[in-house]
């Protein structure tokens, strides 16, 4: 089987471009009960990812993702830098020395990323964080793989779940991050991080076939 590097690059590039396009939107979401810097913070990191994209180590998928994680962990401020950076670093570790990734490998990498976020930030599911979109999306991905769906379908289904789960965070009361300080007032609007996960997943799904084939 051929190298998955182009596909990994595609995913990372799509994430970066989508973050930059949504800088303002993500910031507005964070401003409702947070402090409004989420879009700005992420954008400053993914901006560097895009600018330096061609210079990153491509000796392996793991090396490439590790570099992305380091850029984000070290250069993004706020809560998001350490959390998103950790996610990439853990995904890199889970990729090991693989060059061709099966759908099951993607699931394992995403699980490792989510576990890293969970461990570093201490949040449990239902506390109104990006985990509340990410984890259901991974579950769906796994279920669709088991059901034999094609890659492009997998991405579409996972994105659908991510978006729905992000919407559903509206009903939750924030117990992590700055939004938690507002207590009950955090109920009624979706979590910025969760929505971002939905938007990124959708962008990946939308571009999937065009960019790298089914």
């Amino acid at each position: 089987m051929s190298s998955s590097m182009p596909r990994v690059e595609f995913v990372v590039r799509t994430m970066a471009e989508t973050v930059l396009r949504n800088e303002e939107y993500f910031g507005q979401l964070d401003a409702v009960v947070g402090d409004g810097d989420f879009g700005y913070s992420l954008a400053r990191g993914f901006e560097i990812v895009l600018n330096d994209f061609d210079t990153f180590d491509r000796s392996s998928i793991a090396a490439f993702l590790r570099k992305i994680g380091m850029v984000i962990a070290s250069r993004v401020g706020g809560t998001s830098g350490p959390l998103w950076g950790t996610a990439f670093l853990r995904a890199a570790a889970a990729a090991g020395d693989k060059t061709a990734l099966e759908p099951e490998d993607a699931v394992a990498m995403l699980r490792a990323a989510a576990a890293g976020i969970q461990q570093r930030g201490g949040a449990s599911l239902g506390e109104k964080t990006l985990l509340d979109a990410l984890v259901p999306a991974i579950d769906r991905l796994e279920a669709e793989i088991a059901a034999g769906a094609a890659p492009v379908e997998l991405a579409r289904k996972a994105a659908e779940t991510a978006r729905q789960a992000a919407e559903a965070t509206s009903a939750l009361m924030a117990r992590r991050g700055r939004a938690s300080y507002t207590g009950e007032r955090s109920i009624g609007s979706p979590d910025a991080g969760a929505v971002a996960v939905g938007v990124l997943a959708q962008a990946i799904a939308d571009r999937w076939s065009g960019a790298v084939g089914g």
Partner: protein
Amino acid sequence: MMKKFVNDPKQFVPEMLQGIALANPDRICYVPQYNLIMRSGAPDDAKVSIVQGSGSGHEPAHVMVVGKGMLDAACPGDVFSAPPVDYVYETIRRLKSQKGVLLLVNNYTGDRLSFDMAREMAEAEGIRCETVIIDDDVAVSGSTHTVGRRGVAGNFFVIKAVGAASECGAGLDELAALGRRVNSVTRTLGIALSSCTPPAKGAPLFDLGGDEIEVGIGIHGEPGRRRDKLVPASAIVEMILDAVVPDLPYQSGDDVALMLNGLGGTPLSELYLLYGLAHRRLAGRGIRVRRSYVGEYCTSLEMAGASLTLVKLDDQLVSLLDAPADTVLRIF
């Protein structure tokens, strides 16, 4: 349109830091790459290095309280964003002292994560670190919200105390214990009369009606615990004291330091008015104000509002608060 003195919003923090550097050529040293403001001559192996980092927008906290008797360095992030990990890591490395590095961290998830990761990296290189978490805000109750209380204007007292003690050669563990002790007797509550506008956002973080106030506000433009109607200053002071005094509790017979901190857009006249009301009401409760602090110590950009901080005093603490200091923040 945002009514601010600003050029490119992305350059807001660097341009501010450049101004600080130019205004204080002898006091501090500026490392643009990491938003780092260090005291001239730091690190000093005869002294624990004291480092604070947080988002920007809280000026004078923390970049302007770098100097003799206060911080040895501050590494701010962007407005209201914790500094990225490598800013903190580089700061710790450059401030490495034989006696260790004390990290003062306001209790916010972002700040804690950045400082934790940076500290791990620094300790892996053999740099001794201790961390003091500051969480003086009574608006957030530690029990129902598991992230715990926020660190707000009370951080000034922690910095002042450990800063003074470090000048006298106190060791790392002793300073960490002192910092935790000061934090443990410090309580703050903030009230906002307006929102504030981060330069990169260009619009206020929340809208307040013409007769509304936010009670229990943080220092990042997050909305407070609840929205109330604007009431006369006396009623506001009473409400704040009713939240702050029972929290420790401060009791009849206690000596305290009383701080009326402006959040950025409230003039000194109103702060002193509030101060006078609070001082007299505390006296009415048998609590004696032994030291007073009125002005801007920890702000939220140009937010109109104020926070009130009480610190329970003992003689050691009074002498640390009275010790001389010379920082970027100065009048003359």
